[in-house]
Structures are given as structure tokens and as C-alpha cells.
């Protein structure tokens, strides 16, 4: 009975499954088309003029206004904000991985009541409504002079990301076979070396996944950035977008430039995802399944 059949190649035998799957396939492609269509619409809207968009929401730019992007970068501050966002996202993600990985490793390996309790503590942190942390964190950061500073924001993001990252990485590390570690230890390797040269390479996929997920989360985080940053050369992209949107009140604004700003926010995500998307998804599941 145990004939090992390679799974992918024999897929054609299943084609005779019925109309439900066919309808499902059509629906999937419909959704895919809608998703892609939305991206295309956002991009084309960014090339149109304000009155054009307001009067015909769904149209083609007759004379593409690439100047919208220039205006978004300079007037809207999206250029500077993009750099700030990249810095904040990459730095906070790298640091949270550096901190969470060792912790997740020992939590996964050592199963005592203490470690279960600590694991539970991290998991429960996921459910906290973040708005209540804003004022205490602001006051705390101000005592060390880190408000209106990207470094302060990075610290906040590290704290916010800790529960999920530890949770995710614990799953990954639990799946690393113990024999590898044993071999390293018997060879006389110290803990740090064991960790770095044996565990990390094996769980590399999971670590990269956690890193990417945190970048995405930091890229889109709005509330803390809004409250903690206000120097216009320090704001991140979501704050720039909120600022831009709010000028509609009292002064009106240019929706073409707004869409250009939205494209600036989406483009790196799109690039990141098309390059690494499959890796993110694959990695997440491998870790979760353990």
C-alpha cells in the first residue's frame, strides 16, 4: 500500500473533480483579476488630475501627470517619509529578530513550568488593544528623550513585535532536530556557537519569514507613528498619508497627488512581495505546523 508517489506530477488524475471546483476556479481568477485591477486603478489614478478623478472615478489618464509623483515626494513629504519608513522597518525588524530568536529557542527547547508560563505571557500579549499603550509609552519615552525620534519609534516597534515574533519563532525552533544540537555540543561547542552555527542556519527560512512579516507590519503601522513623530522630516509613510488626507479639510487637495503617495506606499510592498512572497508564505506554514 505504501507506494511513494511524487505528489505534483500526478495531479492530472484529479481533473475529473466536478463543477464545484470549476466554479471555484472561476471565482478565484475573478478575485485575482479584481485584486490586480485595483492595483492598476490606483496606479492610473495617480497619473490623473484632481478634477478628472473627482468627476470620472474610473477612467484612463489622457495626459499622464508624472508630476504628481514629484509633488508627492516634495510637497507631501512622501520621499523623505519613505526613507524613514525603510529605516524604521528594517532596523526594528532586525533588532526584534536578534532579541526574539534566542528567547524563542530556549522556550522551545526547555519545557518547564517557567518556560510554559513565559510562552503563555508572550501569546497573551497578542490580544492587547494597542491604543492603551500609547500614552504610557509616550510618557516613558519622553523621560529618556526619545519622543519625536525614529529611534524611539523603533523601540516601540520592537516591543510591539515581540509577542508575535517569539510565538512564531518558537514554532520554527521546535522543529529543528535535536540531533544536530547534540552533535555540536558533544563537539564542545558553546551555547552561542551552537545557536549560531547549527540552529540558525536550519531555521533560516523561519527567521527570514518573521523578519519580513515584521517589516510589513512596521511599514503600515500608523497610530504610534502619528502620536510619537511630528517633525516633518521624521515622519513615516502612513503619517505622511494621514497628513495629506487631512489637508482636504479646510483647504481642499489634489487627489492625483494623493494616489501618487499611495503608490509610493504600496510599491515597496509589491516589490518585496513579488520577490519574496512565496518564501514568506512557505516559511510561515512550516513554522506553524510544528
Amino acid at each position, binding site marked *: 500500500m505504501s507506494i511513494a508517489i511524487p505528489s505534483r506530477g*500526478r495531479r492530472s488524475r484529479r481533473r475529473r473533480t466536478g463543477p464545484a471546483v470549476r466554479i471555484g476556479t472561476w471565482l478565484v481568477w475573478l478575485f*485575482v483579476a479584481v485584486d490586480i485591477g485595483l492595483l492598476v486603478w490606483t496606479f492610473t489614478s495617480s497619473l490623473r488630475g484632481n478634477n478628472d478623478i473627482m468627476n470620472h472615478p474610473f477612467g484612463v489618464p489622457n495626459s499622464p501627470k508624472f508630476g504628481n509623483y514629484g509633488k508627492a515626494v516634495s510637497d507631501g513629504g512622501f520621499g523623505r517619509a519613505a526613507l524613514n519608513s525603510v529605516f524604521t522597518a528594517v532596523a526594528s525588524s532586525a533588532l526584534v529578530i536578534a*532579541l526574539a530568536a*534566542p528567547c524563542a529557542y530556549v522556550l522551545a527547547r526547555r519545557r518547564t513550568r517557567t518556560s510554559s508560563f513565559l510562552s503563555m505571557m508572550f501569546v497573551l500579549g497578542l490580544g492587547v*488593544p494597542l491604543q492603551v499603550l500609547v500614552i504610557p509609552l509616550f510618557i516613558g519615552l519622553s523621560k529618556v528623550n526619545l519622543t519625536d525620534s525614529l529611534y524611539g519609534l523603533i523601540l516601540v516597534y520592537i516591543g510591539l513585535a515581540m509577542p508575535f515574533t517569539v510565538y512564531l519563532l518558537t514554532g520554527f525552533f521546535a522543529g529543528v532536530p535535536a540531533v544536530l544540537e547534540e552533535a555540536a555540543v558533544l563537539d564542545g561547542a558553546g*551555547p552561542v556557537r551552537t545557536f549560531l552555527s547549527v540552529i540558525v542556519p536550519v531555521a533560516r527560512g523561519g527567521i527570514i519569514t518573521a523578519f519580513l512579516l515584521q517589516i510589513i507590519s512596521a511599514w*503600515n503601522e500608523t497610530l504610534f507613528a502619528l502620536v510619537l513623530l511630528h517633525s516633518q522630516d521624521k515622519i513615516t509613510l502612513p503619517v505622511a498619508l494621514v497628513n495629506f488626507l487631512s489637508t482636504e479639510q479646510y483647504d481642499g487637495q489634489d487627489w492625483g497627488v494623493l494616489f501618487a503617495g499611495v503608490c509610493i506606499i504600496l510599491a515597496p510592498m509589491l516589490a518585496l512581495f513579488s520577490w519574496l*512572497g512565496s518564501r514568506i508564505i512557505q516559511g510561515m506554514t512550516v513554522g506553524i505546523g510544528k
Partner: protein
Amino acid sequence: MTAQITQSPRIGKVRGDSPRRSRRSEAPLERLHRRTFWPFAAPALLFYIVLFIAPIAFAAYTSFYKWDGLSPMKDRGLNNYRILWLDPVFHTALTNTLKILIVGGVVTFAIALALTMVLREMNHRLFARSVLFFPTLVNAMVFGIAAGFLFSPSGPVDEVLHALGWQTPPQWLSTENIFPMVMGTLIWTSTGFYTAIIMAGVDQIPQYLYEAAELDGCNAWQRFRNVTLPMAWEVISVCAVLWTVSSVNIFQLILVFGGSNSNLPPANSWNTALYVYGEAFPQASAPELGLATAAAMVALLLVAVITVLLRRLMRRERIEY
């Protein structure tokens, strides 16, 4: 999961007996884990406690006071919680939170599982999966901006529906429909996320199990129930916990769909996160931070209870294969 090696006869013999037998006869690996536990865990714990736990503790402390953030705190004891108990808006917010959690969760997972099965049969599955996953990465504000244009009566959605013969489509952007729209958007973005994960998990199920089931005479649904579902159960249960903790805290989505210029969305569309936000950042009054943190504590309790229940319900023996 590794097995605990507490006593290895080989090592015991090598080291010889001694009063501290239990320590000495640990495997080196076990010793390594014990010694490195606190040094490795401490930095993360430190950051977590300082940046997360301490603010939460402070917030819990604040929930027993009346505080606007600027003036000294005024003691209120359990009064804030009494207000929440009496406030019909908070009840609505709690109901909405549960609706999003349960209805949204069931629908999302049903669609995700269905999509997983469909995607497995398709060509270009990975491309489709990636595109469906993408909305998760998009900032909530973008949905609000886009919705205002796309769902307006003169916008493309209604135009397409008119062309298909549906002359009176629903009023997508009406304030009565904020909650369904928010749910719909949430389900749409989450489905892509969970489909991708579950699909990658289902992909790991060995093919021969399906072959065996088919040979036993199972149809598609039975194969799903007896092979796919049990094998992917671990992935699904972790996703359920993730859904619980993340869906309770959505608030930006409601804000962009329902909020206007300077107002918050109308109270019928609030969830607990928005209630907290409305109390902590009011438009033109002093903040009620005590009430806000009390509401947050209630929400946290809700999440904790549901998470524990969920883990109990979904716990099963791990299937080795």
C-alpha cells in the same frame, strides 16, 4: 519536539556515581539548555516587560481612576467598570467585536478552506495565491480612500452591476452599511492570508493518504473531511488563535470606512478597539483615559478567555506520519 534526556546510562557510567547524580548525568544538550535559558531569554523578556507589560500594568492601574492625561488622577475605584456595564454603546461595541470574531472568523476560514481545495487543482496556483495574499500587506487607509471612489453610485462597481442587470445595488457607502463593508473588507484581506498559510500546510500532506482514501471509495468531500482536515488541524488551530487576537483589534479599518472629516464613525459600527480610541482621543473634549483603559482591560479579558477556550477545543493528538 525533542524528547527530554534525563538519564543516559552511558554518561552515568563514564562520569561515575556522585552525590550530585542528577545533575552530572544530564546529557550535555540538556545542560546546555538549562544554562543558556536565562541568558538567552533575558534580553527579549526585558524589552517585552519594559515596552509592553509595564505599559499594560500602568493602563490597568489607570482603569481605576479618572484621568485626562494632564491633571492628577482622581480615584474612582470600580466606577469606570460600572460605566461600561451601563453604557449601551459599549454593549454594542462588544457585540460587534464578537460578531467580527465569530461570524467573520467562520466565513474567513470556510472560504479559506474552500479556496485551498480549489487552488490545489489549478494551474498557476502559486501566482494566484500570491495575488490573493497581497491585500494583507496594504494599509487600511488605502481601502478607505479607494472605497470612496469605487463604491460611489457613479463608480465602477455600480457601473458593472448595472451592466449585469442589477439596477438597484445596495448603498455601499451608507453609514448603515459601514459594519458589513468593514466585515467584507476584513474577510477579503484575511482570506488571502489564511488561504496561503493553510494551503502551504495542506501541501505538506503526503499524497499517498489521498490515494488510499480514494481507493477506499471516498468522494471529494469525504476525502476533505477524513484526510485534509485532520492533517491540517494544527495549522488551522494556530490560525484560529491568530485570527482571534488580530480581529479584535482592528480599528483603523472602521475609522477609514465610517469616519468623516472630524467625526468618528456612528456608534452602531464601533468595536471595542474603536471605543477605546474614542475615549482616549476625543475630538473636542478632555480624554477619558481611565474609561479607555477599563474598556481595554475588558477587551483583553475577552481575548484571553476566547483564546484559552479555543486552544482547549482545538487540541488534538498530534498525528505522526
